[in-house]
């Protein structure tokens, strides 16, 4: 317990300077590193002929989608043709079409759902040119969209920014430098970074074992920093080569938490009131609006973490009855070097921040412990990955504002802009698409033989596996509950579609909301206006998120983890 508290306290210390730095980058303000990066960026702009003109939301979205489409095309070819391309010391075959489709969508959408095993399914070229490359670009895409969204809501300029400029600045000034530093730290702790082929060694038992290797550290750091989550190896961050020590565990934890949290700070700083800026610039850490959202996300996170931690600590009564001591909590599927506390923290974090990396087997979590990651992916707004979580949270904010605004006798407004039919339509689209993908595909899976074939556990746990797989896809999380035999046509195609629609429908709708609000006339703020920066609103926001999620997902959860929990503890 104490180590969780210390870990989180340290996070708060780290996230604030990061948020400020990210704000300076997004707003184009001066930073200490400008002398170096300005030259790098200008060179890139020149070579790529990027004009850096402001775009409206439609142009921004179009450029975002087209860029992503080109990357998907190139990446798909590399995966299919990897057997004949360079850097393939382990003689990996080309990837099968539906699996390639699934993989390329998975990495472009920042999901990193893996239906392959890295060590046997990808060449080193594919790892670098497809996987690692997309880990940078998909994260940058998400952050760029988030920055454009924040600009639209802040309404301080006429456009939402330039997509290419945003992507370049985020990659050169945030992702690459931090990856280099973090990667070196990981190498220092023993994570391999090599182009050598796999090694076969003789173990102390006298048997032979293949040791999978490769450029792991490079992937490992961006995997977390970009909230990607796709492991170099199939077992992800549970393996000692990806996550050898408690220090690497912390590095990975912090690097996946830092940018989503920083995004909220950027939002807060961007939407600060104009008046203050005219006068003497007061120092602010979060900005009023950002503080509300950060607080609401933190509450959701802590509630989930507490549930997960205590559920895991309570252990498994069936194991207890079988004579396995549960005094350390439920250790099934967990690494001894991390224990229950770091595992619960990592599990909650990876699904809240939609990274999808795992340091323990989620399939073997206790029912309620496993429900927490599932629920947080269903909410998809507890910090969330690469800025998308912030945008999703704003959808709930708009919903809360709509109800609360009416209850004080005014037509609803947020950040000085009226919320009307058009915005509600787009918010509704985002709110509908998520349960539609998760519940719809899950129902399809349990009703068809193609889907049922993948379920390896009978009963309630099987349903949880299915729900988890689609929640992970739709939320662009990518963590696997595992235990699902998922490299089949059915699963490759359905999860591929869930990832695709989960990502792009939401982003387009959200940018449209930003564009629509940007175009609106700012309305006056008086004491009669609904305040969205106080404690009451935080509480209301948390309640709205829980009630909406509960109303949407409760029946499914009742038949999955809740039923499993009840049968486990009450029989």
């Amino acid at each position, binding site marked *: 317990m104490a180590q969780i508290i210390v870990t989180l306290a340290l996070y708060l210390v780290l996230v604030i300077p990061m948020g400020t730095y990210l704000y300076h980058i997004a707003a184009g303000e001066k930073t200490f590193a400008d002398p170096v990066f300005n030259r790098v960026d200008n060179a890139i702009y020149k070579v790529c002929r990027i004009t850096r003109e402001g775009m409206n939301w439609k142009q921004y979205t179009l450029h975002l989608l087209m860029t992503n489409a080109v990357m998907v095309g190139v990446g798909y070819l590399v995966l299919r043709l990897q057997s004949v391309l360079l850097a393939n010391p382990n003689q990996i075959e080309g990837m099968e079409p539906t699996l390639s489709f699934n993989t390329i969508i998975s990495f472009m959408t920042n999901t990193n759902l893996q239906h392959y095993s890295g060590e046997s399914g990808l060449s080193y070229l594919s790892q670098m040119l497809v996987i690692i490359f997309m880990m940078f670009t998909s994260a940058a895409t998400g952050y760029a969209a988030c920055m454009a969204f924040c600009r639209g809501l802040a309404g301080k300029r006429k456009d939402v920014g330039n997509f290419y400029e945003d992507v370049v600045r985020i990659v050169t000034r945030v992702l690459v430098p931090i990856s280099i530093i973090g990667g070196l730290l990981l190498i220092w702790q023993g994570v391999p970074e090599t182009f050598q082929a796999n090694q076969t060694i003789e173990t102390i038992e006298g048997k032979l074992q293949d040791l999978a290797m490769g450029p792991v550290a490079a992937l490992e750091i961006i995997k977390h920093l970009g909230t990607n989550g796709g492991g170099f190896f199939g077992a992800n961050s549970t393996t000692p080569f990806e996550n050898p020590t408690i220090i690497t565990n912390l590095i990975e934890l912090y690097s996946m938490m830092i940018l989503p949290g920083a995004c909220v700070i950027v939002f807060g700083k961007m939407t600060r009131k104009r008046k203050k800026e005219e006068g003497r610039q007061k120092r602010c850490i979060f900005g009023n609006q950002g503080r509300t959202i950060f607080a609401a996300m933190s509450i959701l996170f802590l509630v989930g973490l507490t549930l997960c931690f205590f559920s895991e600590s309570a252990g498994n009564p069936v194991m207890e009855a079988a004579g396995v001591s549960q005094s350390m909590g439920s250790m099934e599927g967990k690494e001894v070097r991390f224990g229950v506390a770091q595992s619960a923290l990592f599990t909650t974090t990876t699904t809240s921040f939609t990274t999808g990396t795992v340091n323990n087997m989620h399939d073997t979590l206790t029912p309620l412990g496993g429900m927490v990651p599932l629920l947080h992916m269903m909410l998809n707004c507890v910090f969330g990955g690469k800025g998308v979580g912030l945008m999703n949270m704003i959808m709930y904010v708009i919903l809360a504002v709509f109800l609360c605004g009416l209850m004080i006798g005014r037509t609803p407004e947020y950040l000085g802009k009226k919320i009307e039919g058009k915005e*509600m339509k787009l918010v509704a689209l985002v709110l509908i698409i998520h349960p539609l993908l998760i519940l719809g595909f899950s129902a399809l899976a349990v009703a068809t033989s193609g889907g049922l074939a993948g379920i390896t556990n009978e009963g*309630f746990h099987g349903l949880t596996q299915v729900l988890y797989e689609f929640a992970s896809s739709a939320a662009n999380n990518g963590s696997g509950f595992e235990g699902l035999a998922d490299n089949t046509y059915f699963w490759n195609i359905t999860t591929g579609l869930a990832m695709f629609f989960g990502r792009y429908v939401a982003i387009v709708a959200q940018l449209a909301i930003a564009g629509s609000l940007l175009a609106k006339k*700012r309305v006056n703020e008086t004491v*009669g206006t609904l305040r969205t920066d106080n404690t009451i609103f935080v509480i209301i926001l948390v309640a709205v998120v829980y009630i909406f999620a509960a109303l949407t997902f409760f029946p499914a959860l009742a*038949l999955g983890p809740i039923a499993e929990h009840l049968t486990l503890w009450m029989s």
Partner: protein
Amino acid sequence: MARQEKRTKFITQDILKSSLIGAFQKLDPRYMVKNPVMFVVEVGFAVALLLTIAPTLFGDESSLRIYNGIVAFILFVTVLFANFAESVAEGRGKAQAETLKKTKKDTMATLLAKDGTEKVIHASELKKGDVVIVRTGEMIPNDGEVIEGIASVDESAITGESAPVTREAGGDFSSVTGGTTVVSDWLKVRITSEPGQSFLDRMISLVEGASRQKTPNEIALGILLISLTIIFMIVVVTLYFFAGYSGAKIPIATMIALLVCLIPTTIGGLLSAIGIAGMDRVTRFNVIAMSGKAVEACGDVDTMILDKTGTITYGNRLAADFRPVEGKSKEDLIDYSVMTSLCDTTPEGKSVVELGRTLGTRIGDGAKDQMEFVEFTAQTKMSGVNLADGTQVRKGASEAIQEYVRAKGGQIPKDLNGIVSEISTLGGTPLVVCVEGKIYGVIYLKDTVKPGLRERFERLREIGIKTIMCTGDNPLTAATIAKEAGVDGFIAECKPEDKITEIQKEQAEGKIVAMTGDGTNDAPALAQADVGLAMNSGTTAAKEAANMVDLDSDPTKILEVVEIGKQLLITRGSLTTFSIANDVAKYFAIIPAMFTMVIPQMEILNIMHLSTPFSAILSALIFNAVIIPCLIPIAMRGVKYKPMRSEKMLIKNIGIYGLGGIIVPFIGIKLIDLIVTPFLAMIGL
């Protein structure tokens, strides 16, 4: 000033009858589809009905016939309740419209041809631009502009005000409304509206709700409700498959019951009733809103531009104080002032007597008989009385009285000019009182702020509304009144253009502006304002430009109208929150009931201890139905509204309708369960 809304019983026998009929008529699916939430319920009813006739249609067991029948019946009642709510709201408007329609009898009109010949035709044949002549006792056939003549017109049919008003060609009193009667003299009127388009016609259709269009906020809320309905359809349909996977066979009727319980039927059923009732509350107030949008905009008003005269002050200068000159007692001054005014019927004169009485004058009404009244004339600029003994008591403008006193050989007190100029600078009117050659002092007449306004402006400030006073007075006078009334700002020496400039300035800052006005020159400003309340006594142009018309021509009403607008939005938001919050309890009733058969441990979620799965589902469904009529009174009257800070109001309403919305159904469903269990046991469920 606090005007009480005309309290009528919110439902009468007639309305009840017509609403019941209306509730059935609205079952027509073509009508229901306009309200998607309730349409889903109706479709659910149709399916349940089908399953009552053929229980095995979708593979359910045939023993469920009775259960399906009960579900179908409750769904049917749910739809009826929602339709009933809407009908009641419409019924109240219709009753109002009936009264108006009575005035719209088939009138005859005397058409005046170009060559001067007269021709009697039906009013409905009149076209825009025709000229008619209306004589004493005749009804004005349609809206128009007086082009010749002057007459008294009885407008009680529209305003309810029995005193006739004067209408004449030119100026601000040239517009006449169809349906009003000329009571003396004659008018030549140019018709300004096509038949069926007159003010009265529009009022009737507005009040009836026939031309009701959804407001922007209603549309946005409608979208929210539809998307919730879609989400819950996804939830219920997919749950059918999940349950199948888990080995639970759930009857179709139960799935329908779950869906209907979850979708926001409470607000879905009451939404249009709330909107109609909001308009109706405004109408009961004798204000006709041209659209629901206007009422809604009222809730958002940030700034109110108010005319000083008529709105903030009475417009007449009334006695406020008596200021004796040096050497004269105040009592004497009061007595003589009252004496001069006893027979004076002007508001100023009456106010002097009134103030004198309050201050304890010794002069009674009987004194009137012993004196001779000297009326005010433009030449003398004074009025007064000659007492029985011939003493001349006069009051009047300072110069006139001074001249008069000098002529009588009297002295002018040294401090007189000081008092007079002090009163003038304060914006008041000094009336000097003298008896023969002796000046006693000055009556301080001033524009009086209507009582209670200060407190109301205070309340408005609390909810964030700024008030700006417009007046033609000089800045000093304006400042005095502004301070007294407690408005936030004022525009002195205000011309009509200034009002527009001010409105535009406020709007540029993103504020929603409300204003009242009556004259033609107010029309552009009324059109520019987001909420424009025109006085019925005003010109047609002003009424056309405004989005609300006050039939009583009382500009202070804008304050109430704003509160009604807020109340409308609060009612909508509160009931939506209540409706959504209700779902929590319904889940706790239905989910365990659905699954305890296959997962006995689910019983632990049955925290209300509902007796059987059937009773649990039916209780939730019955609660869902009866809550609609239970909330009709709130929908009609609106949620109680008291101006307070936004945070306080939010906490209060969230407490009542949010938390209340979670708790009430737990109690309600449990109670219904206790009642229905024995009945269900009798029929074997």
